[in-house]
């Protein structure tokens, strides 16, 4: 719509300029031809029947000799220049600039998408890293719990072992003391019997049957008991 308006404006511009009287003058041929026509016009303008205005003719002739004004636009240049501009305007606005704008837009979209996906990837990575960190934290605390449990178990087991060992040791000691005591009693009993026998034999030899057997035994028992009391 806009390009059609502009082309219409361009065509109107050509029309307006072409309609200007000065332009029509500019299109009237080469310099010699223009001078010739100018002289003819000067003759015609200064001739009234048979009378000729030589002063006026001389003045007009001087004007004819003057260079053509630089500010007079030439119609062919307007036509060709205008056509060249309208062509460039139409081609660029219809084909080149839309393609260029599409390229810029595509690039802008691609860069925006890349930035957004990079941002999303970074957010994902950060979230994943946070998850990993949390998992590592959980694993550490779990490991700590396991270690604490292991320590507690080890302590408990140690105490149990020590307690059991102490109990066994006490039991062993007790049994040993009992064995010692029994052995001692047995030894004492054996000793007592042997001492009794020895004493009887000795006494028999000393007194040679002065005492009966029951008296001797009672005497010896009494002696042994006194000896046993002394040894404790």
């Amino acid at each position, binding site marked *: 719509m806009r390009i059609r308006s502009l082309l219409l404006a361009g065509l109107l511009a050509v029309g307006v300029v072409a309609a200007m009287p000065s332009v029509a003058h500019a299109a009237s041929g080469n310099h010699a031809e223009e001078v010739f026509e100018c002289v003819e016009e000067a003759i015609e303008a200064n001739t009234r029947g048979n009378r000729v205005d030589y002063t006026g003719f001389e003045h007009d002739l001087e004007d004819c000799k003057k260079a053509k004004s630089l500010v007079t636009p030439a119609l062919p240049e307007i036509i*060709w220049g205008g056509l060249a501009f309208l062509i460039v305007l139409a081609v*660029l606005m219809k084909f080149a600039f839309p393609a260029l704008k599409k390229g810029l837009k595509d690039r802008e979209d691609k860069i925006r998408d890349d930035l957004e996906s990079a941002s999303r990837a970074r957010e994902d990575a950060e979230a994943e890293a946070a998850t990993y960190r949390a998992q590592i934290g959980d694993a550490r605390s779990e490991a700590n719990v396991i270690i604490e449990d292991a320590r507690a178990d080890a302590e408990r087991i140690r105490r149990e072992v020590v307690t059991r060992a102490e109990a066994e040791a006490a039991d062993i000691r007790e049994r040993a003391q009992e064995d010692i005591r029994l052995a001692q009693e047995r030894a004492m009993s054996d000793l007592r019997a042997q001492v009794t026998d020895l004493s009887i034999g000795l006494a028999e030899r000393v007194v040679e049957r002065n005492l009966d057997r029951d008296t001797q035994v009672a005497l010896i028992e009494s002696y042994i008991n006194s000896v046993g009391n002394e040894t404790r």
Partner: protein
Amino acid sequence: MVLGELLPNVNELFEWKGIFGPNTAFEFNKVALMAFVSTIICIALFWIGGTRRKLVPTGVQNVAEAGYLAIEENVSIAAMGDEGRKWTPFFATLFFWIFFINIWSVVPFIQFPATSRLAIPLFLAIVSWMTFIVTGFVKQGPKYFFSNINPSGVPFALKFLVIPIEFFSKYLLRPLTLAVRLFANMTAGHVLLAIFAIMTNELLVKHNSGLYQVIFSPLPFLGLVAFTAFEILVAVLQAYIFTILTAVYINESVHPEH
């Protein structure tokens, strides 16, 4: 006086014989040829640049995209705001085509800006003029023609003065000033370069005046180099001025409150 003897008739700097169709309304001369070559360059630049799809633009694609975006930023948006974006293709065409027909002034062996003839600047000015008038009419309806020349806030008594001034300024003088500004600048630049080129030729090549020549002959040559550089600046600047003024005028038609 010396220059008068050296320089040819000034029309010889601007008049060109027809390549074909001489002395007719369709005479095709150097100006027309330059206009068409500029058209081809513009189309080639933006066609090639616009159809390439490299993610990181280089070469022609880079020039085309950077040029288009520069016009969008510095003309369309600067003069019309965000609404100006849809006008960028028109402004970019205007700017680059004017630039290419201006820049012929410094291209070796051509050295003539097509805009130093009034025809093309006048045509472009009328295109610009009709565009902003048609746009104003489309956007605001028939009231545009009066509201455009009747600024608000002006005391009633002053309106008798302001309205005629605005009428002449906006409807008659704008196309004229647009055309004359471009044409006169390019004409002056072309004449200046021609004068310095002729002086350089006379002093460095033709004359042999001993010490005088040794001392003074480099001066016009240095002037020629400097003015050639200046002419490149003028070619860009005049294309920009023409385009941004067109954008400002269109903006006035689109937003009457401004």
